[in-house]
């Protein structure tokens, strides 16, 4: 059952998967861009971001544009590694059951 172990529990959710995908191909993405991309509410997005941050997959930078807060997110080294392993496990899953 080593296949299942490769799959990371933290990415076992479409929204967290979407957040990670966007962060993998962009240096940083801000809250509103993520919200637009995933088409979800502020509260929902915030809670998923929180759990990704707590798992050490992403890091948060708080900044300002003028007077408005601008919170951007980027992927950590550990998050990148875990996400790549997760994708590899998904691929294995498809191949092995063919």
């Amino acid at each position, binding site marked *: 059952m080593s296949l299942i172990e490769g799959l990371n529990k933290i990415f076992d959710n479409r929204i967290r998967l979407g957040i*990670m995908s966007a962060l993998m*191909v962009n240096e940083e993405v801000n809250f509103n861009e993520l919200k637009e991309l995933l088409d979800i509410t502020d509260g929902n997005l915030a809670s998923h971001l929180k759990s990704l941050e707590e798992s050490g997959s992403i890091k948060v930078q708080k900044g300002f544009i003028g007077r408005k807060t601008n919170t951007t997110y980027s992927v950590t080294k550990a998050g990148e590694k875990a996400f790549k392993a997760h994708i590899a496990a998904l691929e294995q899953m498809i191949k092995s059951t063919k």
Partner: protein
Amino acid sequence: MSEQQQSLEDLQHIKKMMERSSRFISLSGLSGIAAGICALIGAWFAWNRLHRTQSETYDLVRIITTNGAEILDELFWIATYTFIGAFISAFFFTYLRSRKDRVPMFGKTTMRLLWNVVIPMAVGGIFLIRMMYNGEFELVAPGCLIFYGLALVNGSKYTLGEIRYLGYGMLALGIMNLFYVGYGLYFWAMGFGILHIAYGITMWMKYERNSN
């Protein structure tokens, strides 16, 4: 749903999110068709104007020396109007599609695409204008095709990847044109007209026909 199916859908979701967050994918095929038609109309006007000189040659330098510089002015304005017409019509259809896709027209992905297309085009434009000031007209048509081709290949990383092939087509025509100077207008019409239209139709069939 089987685990296999679930994994496949997860991977598709990842791919879609990566694309949507890094590429401007609302570029409409109709924009290509419209720009191509503008280019053909412009080329037709230019051809007519050159034809009226009764010259037996298409060598622009010879035509200018025998007909005076005013024809150069007229050709310049034809080219400018063609560019403006092509730009506005291309913008229009892409604007419509981005509204339908509910993707912001001037989001980060659009800006990244524009910037990467503008750099080779602007540098190429300055280079060609400088060349014309020096009385060098032979390489203007192939130069337009080559710099535009490079701009498309460069921009293809930030929008629908297929635009790369349109870029390769422009580059091939531009390079061929380097060895058949004097036929610039034909190569120009072929590249900016026919290739744009062919690309636009292909993309429209592939991405937009079924979503209507």
